[in-house]
């Protein structure tokens, strides 16, 4: 049997379809449990992780599934996040489906491994339970951690609620194994990770059908040995058979093109998911009451769920407002977003992170997307919720109301246009 065929035979899910405690149907779970059940249903074979608040319960839950014998996977209790990602990389190269989770300093500690994983084009799925970056220490939520890894070459998907977490984890494996890229499933620490919500746990048998076995692009084969990721020159180089092979730059081009190509794949897989499981996650982003809106709020994660309330409040006040909640942050759906934002007059982005010295990262990307399409809407950058600072719907509503009025009265000053507006900052 060839190595690849052997891989196909060996690499099929052989776990129980669902965890005993989570049969298909409604359950009330935390975001962390939702992620763990998602990994279970996806038939992960190797889990390597290191504890960090508020991620720890994800791996504790998986460790329990594994020790109870429900999930025939290897749990590697590593000594650091650097090693957690290292183990995931090794196992993924060997052909196993792997899962890990981390956040904040743990994610930063993995940094070089994140690049190694994506540069090796490995379909690793990792939950990032968004938490503020130290210093100073904070265990509470914002999104500075994953945003700081924006350029690590991973797909980054944000989840609005606990249902989206389980669905996104399952979809993430399909996407990752299709485009050979790692996927970071981002969800807000505490707000989702430690809050119970009702979710629908899918039927594991259907997940097995949705997720065919993982076939590595470069299998380890003693009869056909290759050296993976050696020193690679700037320029293309001939192999021993005289075929011109990529230089470093061609590899990066391919990596980048696969990320761009995943825009389409993320949408297609979401549609397929809906056909099977009856739920769509909106593909690249979802819209709420944007059709007739002149003002649009854009944000990512649990905040966008809260913002639907804000929209409803403001609609009652006759503000023509809508919401775009971003699901795919990388790849960035620039073209589709500019279509969605085409006739909008005012765009209010809310970032739970900062590109220090400029503005919120989502805002920056929105501005450049609009510029590409020649849309000259006014964009205002809001920064909110850093280090767990409370965000109240009425505060956002007040700000949106206020700036919409200012916009109409042409009172938006340079201070507002060129700087970020900090919500609920008492300085």
């Amino acid at each position, binding site marked *: 049997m060839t190595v690849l065929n052997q891989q196909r035979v060996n690499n099929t899910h052989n776990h129980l379809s669902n965890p005993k405690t989570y049969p298909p149907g409604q359950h009330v779970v935390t975001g962390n449990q939702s992620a763990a059940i998602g990994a279970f249903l996806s038939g992960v074979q190797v889990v390597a992780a290191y504890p960090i608040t508020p991620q720890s319960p994800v791996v504790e839950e998986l460790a329990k599934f594994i020790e109870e014998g429900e999930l025939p996977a290897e749990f590697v209790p590593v000594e*650091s996040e650097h090693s957690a990602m290292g183990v995931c990389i090794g196992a993924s190269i*060997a052909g196993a489906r792997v899962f890990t989770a981390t956040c904040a300093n743990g994610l930063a500690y993995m940094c070089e491994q994140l690049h190694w994983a994506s540069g090796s084009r490995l379909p690793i799925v990792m939950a990032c339970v968004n938490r503020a970056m130290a210093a100073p220490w904070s265990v509470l939520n914002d999104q500075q951690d994953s945003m700081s890894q924006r350029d690590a070459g991973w797909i980054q998907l944000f989840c609005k609620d606990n249902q989206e977490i389980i669905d996104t984890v399952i979809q993430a494996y399909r996407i990752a194994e299709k485009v050979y890229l790692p996927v970071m499933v981002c969800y807000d620490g505490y707000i989702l990770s430690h809050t119970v919500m009702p979710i629908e746990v899918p039927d594991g048998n259907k997940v097995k059908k949705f997720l065919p076995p993982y076939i590595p692009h470069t299998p380890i084969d003693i009869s056909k040995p290759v*050296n993976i*990721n050696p020193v690679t020159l700037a320029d293309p180089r001939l192999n021993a058979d005289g075929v011109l092979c990529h230089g470093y730059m061609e590899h990066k081009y391919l990596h980048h093109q696969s990320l761009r190509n995943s825009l389409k794949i993320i949408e297609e897989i979401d549609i397929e998911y809906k056909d099977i499981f009856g739920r769509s996650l909106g593909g690249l982003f979802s819209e709420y009451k944007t059709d007739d809106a002149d003002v649009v709020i854009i944000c990512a994660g649990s905040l966008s769920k809260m913002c639907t309330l804000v929209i409803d409040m403001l609609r009652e006040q006759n503000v023509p407002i809508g919401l775009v909640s971003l699901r795919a942050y990388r790849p960035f759906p620039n073209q589709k977003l500019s279509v969605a934002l085409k006739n909008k007059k005012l765009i209010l982005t809310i970032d739970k992170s900062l590109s220090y010295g400029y503005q919120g990262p989502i805002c920056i990307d929105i501005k450049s997307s609009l510029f590409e399409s020649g849309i000259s809407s006014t964009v205002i950058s809001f920064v909110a919720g850093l280090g767990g600072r409370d965000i109240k719907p009425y505060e956002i509503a007040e700000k949106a109301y206020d700036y919409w009025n200012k916009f109409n009265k042409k009172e938006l000053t340079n201070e507002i246009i060129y700087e970020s507006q900090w919500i609920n900052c008492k300085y």
Partner: protein
Amino acid sequence: MTSILEIPADEYMLPGNRSCAGCGLGIGLRYILKALEGKCVMTVPACCLTVLGGMYPISSITVPWVNSVFPGTAAMATGLVAGLKALKREDITVLAMAGDGGTYDIGIQGLSGAAERNANFLFVCYDNEAYMNTGTQRSGATPKGVKTTTTPIIGKIHSPKDMGQIMDAHNIPYVATTCISYPTDLYDKVKKAKDIYGLRYIHLCVPCPSGWQYDPKDTVTIGQLAVETGAIVLYEIENGIFRLTGRSRRLANGGKLKPITEYLSAQKRFANLDTSSLDELQEYIHKRWNEFITKDKTLTE
């Protein structure tokens, strides 16, 4: 003990590779892969071995090889083991092979973690006693007194760590030291290690003409001198039982160590040592040698 003539002729390292002329690493690698009969997947961090392995798209090695980030060798090996196990391909030995920098210094956390978990791979630290790949900077393995590019004038002022003891303290099933000048000793140790379950650590002394500053023709002789003077001691610790092996065992059984100066004066990197440091070093080597002899309860065998 296997003799040179019993060593298999099969080669898994190809000529025309990128190592310096006379590099001890090529000798070491040949025997490691022979002992594993090529049925392995290697993982290697940034180091001279990466260079020997070759630049894309050509490889100088005929076994599967996975490069790793510099600190991540042991984690990568752990992952390969876990992944191969999940795929029921446990017939493939995972060989992690890192330099002294990738072992003693930046790699020690991951290696220690893997050893505590008794991860099922063979870790070979090939020790050329400095960061050669980046231009001969000092490492935690560089001997005291050695001039490197980061200890350029007075030489290194700290003694190296004892990595063998550090690994032994992890209670792993197999720890051994060896030297490329005794390829059958290396071969036998890798062969034995191959069939042991858990983390096996082999420390391989690799003379480096470029960093140690001697004529490339002397690589094997320098390695021999290292052992004959007691600068390097060949031993193995199998399930806690310590044994001197090969040349070191013969020296302990009625032989006599040569004066350390014979080893030091053959290399320019030690040129800085004054007589008092030499005396100190000689004293240290004798003390350690006597400790090894006392530790080996099998010597009368």
